[in-house]
């Protein structure tokens, strides 16, 4: 196994699932769990109280699960899925965050994305940026030459 010169770059994309990616997958996993549990509980017990908020809760859960699986998938087609899921996540947290601040009436109960994820230490707001940055860094032609 010959070590590549430091200047050389691999043409293939790096795996999204190792190194820092593993930590990212872990955080996504925790949020997938938290959002799914929250949505499941809300929908099972009080869907009619705030259908919009609980529907969005379910959507956020789906997005987190998808992003977790796609990032853990490491690359290939999963990379496209990961871009989509993390992109939707970013739009979701910004849209729901803004709406929940402007119009509390439609959001009587909390979702993970309410007030930009305030109830979760604003991690939901930071996470999509980390996800996009990580997908960008591991894209083709930029990874370290040797894995």
């Amino acid at each position, binding site marked *: 196994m010959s070590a590549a010169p430091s200047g050389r770059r691999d043409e293939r994309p790096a795996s999204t699932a*190792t*190194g*820092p*990616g*593993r*930590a990212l997958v*872990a*955080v996504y*996993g*925790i949020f997938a*769990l*938290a959002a799914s*549990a929250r949505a499941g*509980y809300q929908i*099972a*017990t009080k869907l009619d109280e705030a259908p919009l908020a609980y529907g969005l809760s379910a959507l956020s859960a789906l997005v987190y699960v998808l992003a977790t699986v796609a990032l853990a998938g490491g690359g290939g087609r999963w990379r496209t899925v990961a871009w989509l899921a993390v992109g939707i996540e970013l739009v979701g947290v910004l849209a729901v965050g803004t709406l929940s601040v402007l119009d509390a009436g439609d959001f009587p109960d909390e979702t993970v994305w309410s007030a930009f994820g305030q109830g979760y230490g604003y991690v939901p707001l930071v996470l999509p940026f980390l996800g996009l940055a990580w997908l960008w860094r591991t894209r083709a032609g930029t990874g370290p030459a040797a894995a």
Partner: protein
Amino acid sequence: MPGPLTALVAATSLALAAWALWFVVRDRAVILRQLWGGAVVVGLLVVQAVVAGVLLAQGAASPDAALFWGYVLTQLILLPLAAAWAFAERTRWSSVVLLGAALTVAFLELRLVQIWAA
């Protein structure tokens, strides 16, 4: 729930988080001794679950059952998952995962206390 027990759970998980943070800063992977530390936290969580079950059976409190046990279960699986991660990723990033898991356990402990009192 008994205050001293929940305080102990929170303190041990935060101590584990601090230990993991130290390893992140030092660029080190999780070591076996930290996993034993995690086992202590999980042991306390099991004790806490049993105590909570007994107290609930005696009618000491009436928290939302699905919510309460959901949090208890989540707390129980986080550190074992982080431990599995530590074996798979022998870099500083396993320490980041352990840090995240330990902080989440402490955060869930706070929520448990709130749910219990509600």
